[in-house]
């Protein structure tokens, strides 16, 4: 395995968490490719996730970074009840694995994560795991695909992209 790539991927995931926790939205968005796909599948049953965004419900399914920019727009507009005041979050990302690099240089990697959330609306600990496809843009790895699984399926607080 490539120790330098492992380090680079772990750094990327740490930066993603860092920017979300510090609410540095612009820097967070820059980690994604323009055409990034962002997908949080819904649970189809106690044990199965939905698998087909074209025919089944997802929690979030966005094609293109613009969908994430919409979320940031809503947060920054200070006009969303669920986002004023903003929740405090602390992401802990671990179990980072680089699985393969395909012929086009796309890096497949995964992580597990826990986000502790505190807000006036309640305190919660959310957990899950994510699969990524990473692409090198101008020398740096960027997120081309993120599939984030939220294991919690009986939510007590609104969950936005900055909780995941």
């Amino acid at each position, binding site marked *: 395995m490539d120790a330098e790539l492992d380090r680079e991927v772990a750094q990327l995931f740490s930066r993603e968490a860092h920017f979300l926790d510090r609410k540095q939205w612009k820097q967070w968005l820059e980690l994604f490719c323009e055409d990034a796909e962002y997908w949080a599948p819904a649970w*189809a049953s106690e044990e199965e996730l939905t698998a087909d965004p*074209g*025919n089944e419900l997802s929690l979030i399914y966005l094609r293109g970074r613009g969908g994430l920019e*919409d979320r940031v727009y*809503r947060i920054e*507009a200070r006009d969303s009840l*669920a986002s004023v005041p903003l929740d405090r979050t602390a992401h802990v990302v671990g179990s980072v694995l680089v699985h393969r690099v395909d012929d086009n240089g796309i890096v497949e990697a995964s992580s597990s994560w826990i986000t502790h959330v505190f807000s006036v609306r309640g305190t919660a600990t959310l957990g899950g795991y994510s699969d990524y496809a990473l692409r090198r843009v101008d020398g740096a790895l960027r997120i081309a695909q993120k599939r984030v699984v939220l294991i919690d*399926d009986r*939510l007590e607080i*609104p969950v936005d992209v900055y909780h995941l």
Partner: protein
Amino acid sequence: MGTNESSLNIAALIDDRAGEGIFRVRKDIYTDPALYALEIKRIFEGGWVFLCHESQIRSPGDYFSTHVGRQPVFVLRQEDGSLRAFLNVCPHRGSILLPFRQGRVKGSINCRFHGWAFGPDGRCEGITFERAGGYPGGRADKRHFDLTPLAHLETYRGFVFGSLSPAAGPLEEHLGSTRAFIDLFVDQSPDGIEVLRGSSTYVCHHNWKMQVENVPDGYHVPTVHRIFGTTMAQRQLRPGYDGLLQTETGRISGSVKNGCYDLGRGHMLLWADRASPEAAPLYPSTAQIEKAFPGEKAHWMLRRGRNLMVFPNLVLNDLASTHLRTHRPLGPDRTEVTVWCIAPVGESREARYARLRKFEDFFLLTGMATSDDLVSLNIVHEGALADARPWIDFQRGIATLVPGADEAARELGVNPASSNSSWTHETPYHGLYRHWLRRLTATE
């Protein structure tokens, strides 16, 4: 308020002087534990409640488990295609029988605690170690241990309802004029509608009636969902959000014709014309629907968004997307909500894709509107505890209320208890709380 039933003067909680321009409710209706216990008994466990949709239990052996009030129940498709519903509780020691929300029974239902077996018809078929069980007379009386059926189970056009109370009366009578509005969903495809795979469940920190009130509440939309409208407006400037992927926001600014109905028996409806019907996922079916339903019914289906509250626990919304929601009270200040996307069977891939994306944008706690609804209702519940100002007034629309049907209702052939000319009006709540009061105070 007191903590036992007898100390409650329930009638005094609803100040119904609509003729004098006053209709108000005491905040205790949202917060009082004794009243909550009575609601569970009289409303949720004392009459018809929504259970599930038939598309969730298509084949023999398929089951759907849910609750009627506090009681866990399941609905099971029989070999002959009929449905039966039972308490999801072993008659032996009370263990929950079926552990999944949806699943399939193969052969018999086996209790996971002591292994007792029950047929799909609810008959007790096997008692583990029966002969060695030392039962009176050497054998257990199996008929004594049959599953407990619901008193009533009926379906209206795919929507399955049940009642624990034998006194519930016919389902059609309970549904009344909501049937015409349920039809507006079911008739969207010649093959009906189906619940799509995947759901979301969340726990609200507010009283269940706030979920109910929210359904015909157009008044919060230009405030709470203003941010949804502006977010969608800036999204529209990017490529890729045209055609069916355009999100309709004309309703949010209140720029369209709209109104609301008290449908009787606690049922309510809000409607608003679509500012951009060509963006609705149903739009590609326009010709087919206009052919099948000439006249005003097609107009209602294609060009008018609707929120329907079927008392006490079924919500059907047809806005930018189509939404099935049910709620289950957990306490005076806790309500569990589950949402699904419902869709016409056989719609195009393009329409299905757009319907799902618009559902996710709006109708989820991970979305950009229901999340704001949840918080708005949670803070209303917080305010309900502030009984230094004890009354909530439902005055809006008192002066413009039309008894019976208005023109739009007549065109559809329905006869509401009352109609009103703006979705910002609060008169549907008059019917809601009159019905609520009747249910809680009726002599048993």
